């Protein structure tokens, strides 16, 4: 026990004292804050082109819909250059489209809208342009056209024009509320999503960074031959344990410091940044009734609403995820470090472990899209990805307790296996120089160690 403390102390203090640790810890929150607010600094969060309204509107409907759309576009995007209206007979629409195509090619306009009889019937509209793949842009245009088609129809039904104008300005902002077993939970859905995403990413990041720190540390001890002296004083098991605990606590220290600094930065730094980005934010939601945080960016919303309250049990699960996930991967990384003798070898040897880790984050997208699906369920139960993906799922949906317990037990068992395996590889590999072992030799190491 005494020796474990000595090893642990060295691992912890040497790392916490290092220049890069201090720089990383201090700059971390600044970086996170920038990530959180940069969408606001670079324009609004709905990622629409600034020149969205600078389009040709080809109106082959003969109803005046084009004029309405043109007016609405101009009104909604006052900062953009104005749209050009072309009212033509239906049979001339194709010729007009060709002209507009050329204009788009010459960058005279961003694109063109085609309104025809199908549009009036509420079925379809056409849009072609440089931003036709930007779903945010197309969605915005569709919304405006849809509203004007509706207004047109209401007008035809004899509803007074001023009322139609008022109706057509109705905007709906979705305010969401997640409800759990204990009733409504604080924080909006988007904030929880962000939180789950951030936590999963942070777990992944810390495991990758500090797992590799362990790997490099083991390799350093091996290649500099310090291990020769050290293992004459302390068993390899104690050495490995002290390393994992020491480096793990370095990671926890860093995250804790980040959290504290980020909270401080939010209270003192965020208002400044967001305040400055304000006008751009309001620009897109100009017609919203006052008092509603219209189109408030997700990041800002999370900041404004404060972080959702995380119940104690969830915090424990989170900590468990980190501790177990870290131990699992750290011991594997340590084994890799003990296997190799050179920087060239280590990248290759670490690939299987990295693949396991990466496989958990590449599924984050699909899991966010469908957190109750089979993929999400499987990946959040699989011991190799559970520590990273379970917290993400927990933020999105209510995970049954037995799945939670099952996942944690699975990770725990995998931890025991990986520690057992790694300790044996470590024991033999640490003093074994020469070429990298083949898989067969590795099996022999594991079987013959002690």
């Amino acid at each position: 026990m005494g020796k474990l403390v000595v090893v642990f102390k060295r691992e912890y203090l040497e790392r916490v004292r290092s220049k890069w640790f201090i720089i990383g810890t201090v700059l971390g929150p600044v970086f996170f804050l920038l990530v959180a607010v940069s969408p606001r600094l670079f324009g609004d969060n709905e990622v629409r082109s600034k020149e969205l309204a600078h389009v040709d509107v080809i109106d082959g409907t003969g109803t005046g819909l084009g004029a309405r759309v043109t007016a609405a576009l101009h009104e909604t995007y006052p900062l953009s250059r104005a749209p050009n209206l072309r009212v033509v007979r239906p049979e001339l629409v194709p010729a007009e489209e060709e002209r507009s195509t050329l204009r788009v090619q010459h960058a005279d306009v961003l694109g063109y809208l085609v309104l025809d009889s199908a549009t009036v019937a509420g079925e379809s509209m056409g849009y072609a342009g440089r931003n036709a793949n930007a779903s945010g842009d197309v969605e915005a245009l569709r919304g405006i056209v849809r509203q004007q088609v509706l207004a047109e129809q209401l007008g035809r039904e004899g509803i007074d024009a001023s009322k139609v104008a008022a109706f057509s300005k109705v905007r709906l902002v979705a305010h969401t509320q997640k409800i759990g077993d204990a009733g409504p939970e604080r924080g909006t859905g988007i904030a929880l999503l962000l939180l789950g995403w951030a936590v999963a990413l942070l777990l992944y990041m810390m495991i990758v960074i500090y797992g590799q720190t362990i790997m490099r540390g083991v390799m350093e001890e091996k290649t500099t031959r310090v291990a020769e002296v050290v293992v004459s004083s302390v068993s390899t098991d104690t050495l490995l344990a002290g390393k994992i605990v020491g480096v793990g606590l370095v990671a926890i220290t860093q995250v804790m410091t980040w959290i504290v600094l980020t909270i401080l930065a939010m209270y003192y730094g965020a208002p400044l940044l967001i305040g400055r980005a304000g006008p751009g934010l309001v620009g897109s939601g100009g017609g919203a009734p006052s008092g509603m945080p219209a189109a408030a960016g997700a990041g800002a919303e999370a900041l404004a609403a404060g972080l959702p309250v995380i119940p104690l049990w969830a915090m424990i699960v989170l900590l468990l995820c980190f501790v177990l996930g870290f131990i699992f991967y750290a011991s594997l990384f340590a084994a890799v470090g003990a296997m190799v003798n050179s920087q060239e070898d280590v990248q290759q040897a670490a690939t299987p472990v990295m693949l396991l880790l990466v496989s958990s984050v590449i599924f984050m997208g699909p899991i966010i899209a469908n957190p109750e699906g089979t993929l999400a369920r499987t990946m959040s139960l699989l011991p190799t990805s559970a520590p990273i993906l379970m917290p993400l799922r927990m933020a999105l949906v209510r995970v049954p307790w037995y799945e939670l317990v099952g996942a944690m037990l699975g990770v725990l068992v995998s931890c025991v296996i990986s520690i057992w395996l790694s300790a044996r590889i470590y024991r033999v590999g640490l003093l074994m120089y020469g070429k990298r072992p083949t898989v067969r030799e590795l099996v022999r190491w594991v079987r013959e160690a002690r």
Partner: protein
Amino acid sequence: MSDLAIDIRNVVKRYGDHLAVGDLTLAVPRGTVYGLLGPNGAGKTTTIRMLLNIIVPDSGTITLFGASHRAPGITDRIGYLPEERGLYKKMQVRRVLRFLAELKGVSPRVADQRIDEWLERLELRTPERDWGLAKVDELSRGMQQKVQFIGTLLHEPDLVILDEPFSGLDPINAQALKDAIVELKSRGKTVIFSTHLMDNAERLCDSVCIIARGRKVLDGGVAEVRRAHSGRMIALALEGDDASRIAPVIGDRALVRRVDDHNRYYELELADGAEAQEVLRRVVATGAAVQRFELVLPSLHQIFLERVGARGVEEGVTGHG
């Protein structure tokens, strides 16, 4: 309390099909300087690692100071300087030393005191510069060797194990190391070191054990071993350039088993059943002018060559297997 520092009995260690150490039995009395001699790959490093409980023998027992070598705390009484040396490159020298001492159970305060003493003694701390505050990789190789040596002795071990301590040492550090070994002995410590340099061993060791291919060839006090092999070695020196004249005599395998030809000075090993007098008579008969003809105690080097021969030196298998 046992008067043996090390008592190894019937220890066997195999790596797959390779026999690293076979049925090794040896005893090292307290307070002696003991040499573990053998060519590369003879099993010296493996034996030392088993002593230190880094690797476990397949069979046999190892006793240190009368207790099992696996007894808790026993390794705290051992100082070990491995053949492959190195330190944490980015760590401050003092912190490395404190770490090594603490691993042996020395309190940080006591460690700091001893570190100061040692740094001054080995001139790593002078009025101009305190290398203890530098990082390890700022030190020259020679200085790093000194630091490593300090790390071996900081906890004042009763048993000091030095694996090929002279390899890679510059002459000044080699001298310092030799002095330190003598001083350790004078303070009643036991020193065991492995080497393949017989000259060093002959001058420094009280007792030796020669091993080859994992097996013990012989062991005992240096003087005894040499005496046991005496009477068979002849030192022969010629006055002039008469080498060609005596060539048939010393080339006679019925008379001389082996010749170490130093040009005008020869070391002859008598063939079985041959008499020294016969050799002298035949040499004189050739008319060569003899300057010296003497029955001598063989050097460890010669005994080693005689007993191990070229056979044991083959195969460059290192001890790190």
